[in-house]
């Protein structure tokens, strides 16, 4: 059975330099329980609460992203309930850990769908996770599924809506921007799973269409920690842009080894489209200098004061979760925001929770405002239009280098 959540959500990512407080984890765990959460609706109501399920990686290699997602959902459900709930009913949040372990995840998601009978599931971060759990949710579980993370595209499954950026949204503007100063030679070092393969396939087309060249494209086991052969190739082949999709645990050794070989010193540039603010602390700033990312939101948008809505949202998140992982796009937090808001709008429009009715309403859902601006579902494609931003890392912070001219088409399932 699930335990009730403590006041501030006992399980947060360890803040650096706060080690001592974290040694109390055993006590905290016994008291509150960590595996699954129920955030009960606070106001009493005659109406049954609507159950929202979150399945995300609270622990494991990408636990930072998972906690950002869960925190975003916690904050939003509180806000929605404070504003009167959805179709007059409060929301109740069920959070399950997918633990960066697909086998554990399948069982925990079953728990959401079959035991708690949630009305919608949001979550999954890696593509492997989405692939592992989508069947349990959509086909075997007959439930709606909203996938919030940037990903490789081509997921055109009915009842599965993707609210993160697609390769078209991430690459179409980024790659020409990278090549603007004459850079032509790309390397694609990648982790060996489906997202890098498909993203690279798309990116290669854009590179070649712009007259560039992909010198090599290599795939490594996720936990590879020795990249000397790759790094040497990068150096000797005079690569201009390393467009990489290596993910943790291989990420830190990879970036370190590239830096140590002197790649940035001789003018090379790193680019990685899932890099967000939560990864800034992952490496020393000098290893990341000049790294280019392209996402639907950066903190710099809020800090720059260009978009008041984002700034308010981000400030509220920071106040609520001061120590935890930040509200960041590459951690799927913005996708969770869009997904929950669109689902809320759809349920309000449909007036009930029937899967077909809600799905039909999400299909043309729009939100006026969100992190980085508004967005809307492209009818019939299960994907969203959204604003995109290119940002460059400078001394441990992102600076916006270019902003899309209005919303960018997802270019999927057309």
């Amino acid at each position: 059975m699930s335990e009730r959540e403590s006041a501030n959500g006992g399980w947060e990512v360890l803040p650096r330099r706060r080690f001592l407080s974290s040694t109390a984890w055993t006590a905290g765990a016994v008291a509150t329980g960590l595996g699954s959460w129920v955030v009960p609706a606070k106001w009493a109501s005659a109406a049954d609460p609507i159950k929202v399920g979150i399945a995300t990686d609270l622990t494991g290699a990408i636990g930072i992203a998972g906690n950002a997602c869960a925190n975003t959902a916690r904050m939003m459900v509180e806000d929605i309930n404070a504003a009167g709930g959805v179709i007059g009913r409060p929301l109740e949040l069920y959070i399950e850990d997918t633990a960066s372990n697909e086998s554990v995840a399948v069982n925990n998601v079953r728990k959401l769908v079959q035991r708690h009978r949630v009305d919608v599931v949001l979550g999954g971060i890696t593509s492997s996770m989405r692939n592992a759990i989508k069947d349990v949710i959509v086909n075997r579980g007959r439930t709606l599924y909203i996938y919030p993370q940037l990903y490789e595209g081509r997921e055109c499954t009915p009842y599965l809506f993707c609210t993160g950026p697609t390769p078209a949204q991430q690459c179409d503007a980024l790659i020409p921007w990278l090549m603007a100063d004459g850079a032509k030679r790309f390397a694609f070092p990648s982790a060996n799973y489906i997202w890098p393969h498909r993203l690279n396939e798309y990116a290669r087309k854009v590179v070649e269409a712009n007259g560039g060249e992909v010198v090599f494209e290599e795939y490594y086991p996720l936990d590879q920690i020795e990249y000397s052969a790759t790094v040497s190739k990068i150096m000797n082949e005079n690569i201009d842009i390393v467009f990489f999709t290596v993910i943790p645990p291989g990420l830190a050794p990879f970036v370190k080894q590239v830096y140590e070989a002197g790649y940035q010193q001789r003018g090379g540039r790193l680019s990685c489209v899932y890099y967000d603010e939560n990864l800034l602390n992952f490496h020393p700033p000098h290893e990341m200098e000049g790294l280019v990312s392209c996402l639907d939101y950066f903190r710099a948008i809020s800090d720059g004061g260009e978009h008041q809505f984002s700034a308010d949202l981000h400030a509220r998140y920071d106040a609520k979760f001061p120590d935890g992982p930040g509200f960041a796009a590459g951690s799927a937090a913005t996708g969770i925001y869009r997904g929950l808001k669109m689902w809320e709008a759809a349920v309000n429009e449909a007036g009930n929770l029937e899967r077909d009715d809600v799905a039909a309403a999400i299909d043309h859902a729009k939100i006026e405002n969100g992190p980085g601006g508004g967005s809307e579902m492209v009818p019939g494609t299960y994907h969203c239009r959204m604003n995109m931003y290119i940002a460059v890392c400078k001394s441990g912070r992102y600076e916006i280098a270019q902003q899309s001219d209005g919303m960018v088409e997802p270019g999927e399932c057309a």
Partner: protein
Amino acid sequence: MPIDAAFDIISFTSFVVLVVLGLGVIASMMGIFNLGHGDFVLLGAYTVFVFDELGLPIWLGMTVAPFAVALVGLVLERTVIRRFYAAPVIAMLGTYAIGVVIRETVRGLIGGLYHAIPEPLPGMIDIGEISISKWRLTVILITILVVLVSYLLLRRTTLGLKIRASLENPALARSAAISTGQIYALTFAFGCGLAGLAGALMVPAFSLSADLGVRFLIQAFLAIMLGGIGTFEGPIGGAALIGASTAAFPWVMNPILADIMVFVLAIVAIRLRPTGLFTKRRL
């Protein structure tokens, strides 16, 4: 290319050698196959992490780590491991269980996440065209030093003689007034201390996660079997072979193939030379 390749291969090899050294000492001198060895490596890495979190210098953590892990090893030997000397298979299972407990405890303590640890010696040295990581260079030097010291300790000191005597013939050793129990405890603690050192030195290069040690465990075991159990040189030679081929194969073949090739070749070699490549004894 050849120089930087050689440096990278040697540098990775020295990590493997460090891990294998402790495992090899325990396996060769005590006949115990410590399946929890990877987790003693992790414990060493974790010690450095704790120092970093507390704001203490990292090099201090690295100095303390081997002793802290040796102490844990000593306590475990006195309470648990000594029950297993009669049955090597039970020892494997028991040490595996200990490893699980250590690993999962550390996983809880670090929140199941990955943590980057800065090197105590950041930066590079430029040698002509290529640049070399200062830290990796330091690790290579420390490895050479540790191997030499361990060798001298086991081969040239009275203590080393007693250790070898306890392995060869425990009954005779006891009748010669050697406390084999004490010797075993010391040996085990020494092996664990080496594991702790390996973990402490590798964590800046590879970042801390609960599975850090397990990553090396099977490579380390293959290295020992490949080199030959029962000698000091065997495991080190095996480690050098395994480490070098792990780092070198990606230069000459597809990284995916390289990854499994090392394991396949090693197990075939062990099957063909069950006593090890670096031992003169034959069955």
